[in-house]
């Protein structure tokens, strides 16, 4: 709500237009109905409306701030009407004083102003209502515009995260390398090639049908991790070792689909691929009160692979956690004495398959 209505040309035009119409109309009516000369009438009209124009600019701030960011019509209008009443009183006083001071050349005009003060105040009040509604209308329009902007920004964030999640699930490097392995196996051991194609298909089926918000059970997620690790094992052979410890109580733990996969992929990339020795990836789940902590760790060679900064993969997981749980800090990582550990803390909730 940083906009001041004067910055909006359209509303400024409305406001000035309102002033022009009022001023001309008032002058013509006065000239027609009263016997005073045009000069005092013009002075009267101009002094009254110009003062009105500036004093009532301040009403905008009342509309803008009254009731905080509330858009509830009654709340806001009540406080603005009270303010408008005060402003009308101030305006009536100031304009009449100014007219009395400037009307010394036209004897009797000062008295005429005082006599008609109640009519002036009434007209001021009518105008105040119109101005108030104009401001309120403008406030509503800009409020809605900003709400729409915020909403579209949020939508965009969701879409971007989903897109990235999809990209992340399908690391092209992993797929091309797997296909290269399969190509080799078709010559050396065709039955193994067939087996690997099935694994890769299972993995892709799981990875491709998901969107960023979908949930699954820990058991399902780990089943898919196992496919993934078996595919990688064809590439890396004995170098890749893994141990997945699953507490039977946690089989049905609800978690976002494909949330563990990038963590395992990291472990393969930094633990197994960069090592010339056999390297083990461990998965452990620990229950603590209403929370479950999932730990994925791998050994890495700190001489050749420094932990520098977190990659897009981790950022992407955090974005998804932010969307689903409203908290990206559920994921933390640390590299300590050659062991890299990613720890994911989730609320202990059961997953129920959607029918």
């Amino acid at each position, binding site marked *: 709500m940083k906009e001041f209505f004067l910055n909006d040309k359209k509303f400024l035009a409305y406001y000035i237009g309102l002033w022009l119409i009022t001023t001309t109309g008032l002058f013509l009516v006065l000239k027609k109905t009263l016997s005073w000369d045009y000069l005092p009438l013009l002075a009267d009209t101009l002094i009254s409306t110009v003062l009105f124009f500036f004093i009532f600019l301040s009403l905008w701030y009342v509309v803008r701030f009254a009731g905080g960011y509330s858009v509830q019509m009654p709340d806001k209008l009540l406080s603005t009407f009270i303010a408008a009443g005060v402003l009308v009183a101030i305006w009536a006083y100031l304009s009449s004083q100014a007219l009395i001071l400037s009307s010394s050349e036209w004897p009797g005009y000062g008295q005429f102003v005082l006599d008609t003060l109640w009519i002036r105040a009434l007209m001021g009040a009518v105008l105040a209502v119109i101005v108030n509604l104009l401001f309120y209308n403008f406030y509503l329009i800009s409020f809605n515009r900003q709400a729409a902007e915020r909403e579209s920004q949020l939508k965009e964030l969701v879409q971007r995260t989903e897109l990235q999640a999809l990209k992340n699930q399908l690391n092209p490097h992993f797929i091309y390398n797997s296909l290269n392995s399969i190509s080799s196996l078709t010559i*050396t051991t065709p039955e193994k090639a067939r087996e690997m194609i099935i694994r890769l298909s299972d993995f892709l089926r799981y990875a491709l049908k998901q969107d960023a918000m979908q949930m699954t059970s820990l058991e399902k997620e780990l089943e898919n991790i196992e496919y993934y690790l078996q595919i990688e094992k064809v590439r890396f052979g004995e170098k890749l070792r893994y141990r997945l410890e699953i507490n039977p109580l946690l089989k049905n733990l609800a978690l976002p689909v494909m949330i563990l996969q990038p963590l395992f992929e990291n472990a393969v990339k930094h633990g197994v691929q960069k090592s010339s020795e056999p390297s083990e990836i461990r998965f452990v789940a620990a229950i603590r009160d209403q929370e479950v902590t999932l730990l994925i760790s791998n050994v890495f060679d700190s001489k050749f692979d420094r932990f520098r900064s977190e990659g897009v993969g981790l950022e992407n997981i955090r974005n998804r956690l932010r969307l689903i749980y409203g908290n990206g800090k559920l994921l933390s990582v640390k590299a300590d004495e050659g062991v890299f550990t990613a720890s994911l803390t989730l609320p202990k909730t059961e997953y129920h398959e959607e029918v």
Partner: protein
Amino acid sequence: MRAFLRQASPSQKLNTMKKYKALIIEDEQPARDLLKVFLKDFPAIELLEECTDGFEGAKAIAKHKPDLVFLDIQMPRINGFEMLELVDEENLPLVIFTTAFDQFALKAFEVNALDYLLKPVSAERFRQAVAKALQALEAGSTKNESLLKAMDSAIIGGKFLDRIVLRSGEGVHVVAEEDIYCIEAQDDYVLISTSGDEFLKKRTLKYFEERLDPTYFQKVHRSFLVRLDAIQKVEPYSKDAYLAILKNGRKISVSKSGYSELRQRFDF
């Protein structure tokens, strides 16, 4: 194949038994197997050894001095480019890179005619690449200019170096970019100083000036590239010359223009 050899080099008729030595340097067993199967079609190429990482590869190149190497880029410990840094220039073989889709690798090759094979490797592309390599070997090309160019642009096209692989004596050192204090030009070599060690490497200062992130590194003298964090203080030395004292106690010359650039960087 024989038809190709005749076409490529008529002189080959006189010496059809000439064999070229080759190595496969690749960490994944199935990928190695595939290359081996494809190589069977080329009797002119003798496969001497298969290596599973960059260190083995560098050693095997020094030992066998092969004519042709099939080199994977992503490998344990040091990558394919870094492995080539460990090879003496006179031993540099012709290289055919093998890589899965990878932005930095692709960028390297887009601008160069050097050959590379994308995984999954097609038999046809393999034949083309090897034919090209054989043609080059037949022509007696031992110079590997396109390779050197590719290595250069691989780094330029990708990102700044985050580490330097160095050979010293028998050992190999991996120096992280943030551990480099300064690099000094010394004829054909550069002297790389870290907090505790110094290493000589056969490269030009310009090479590192282009490849180290200028956010952290600044050339302060025609012979010195320095890491800004490593500077402890700068003091005047003589008219138009200054000395920078580094955190490891080393003093290096700073020229007048180097000094004014430092002033700008540090805002003093």
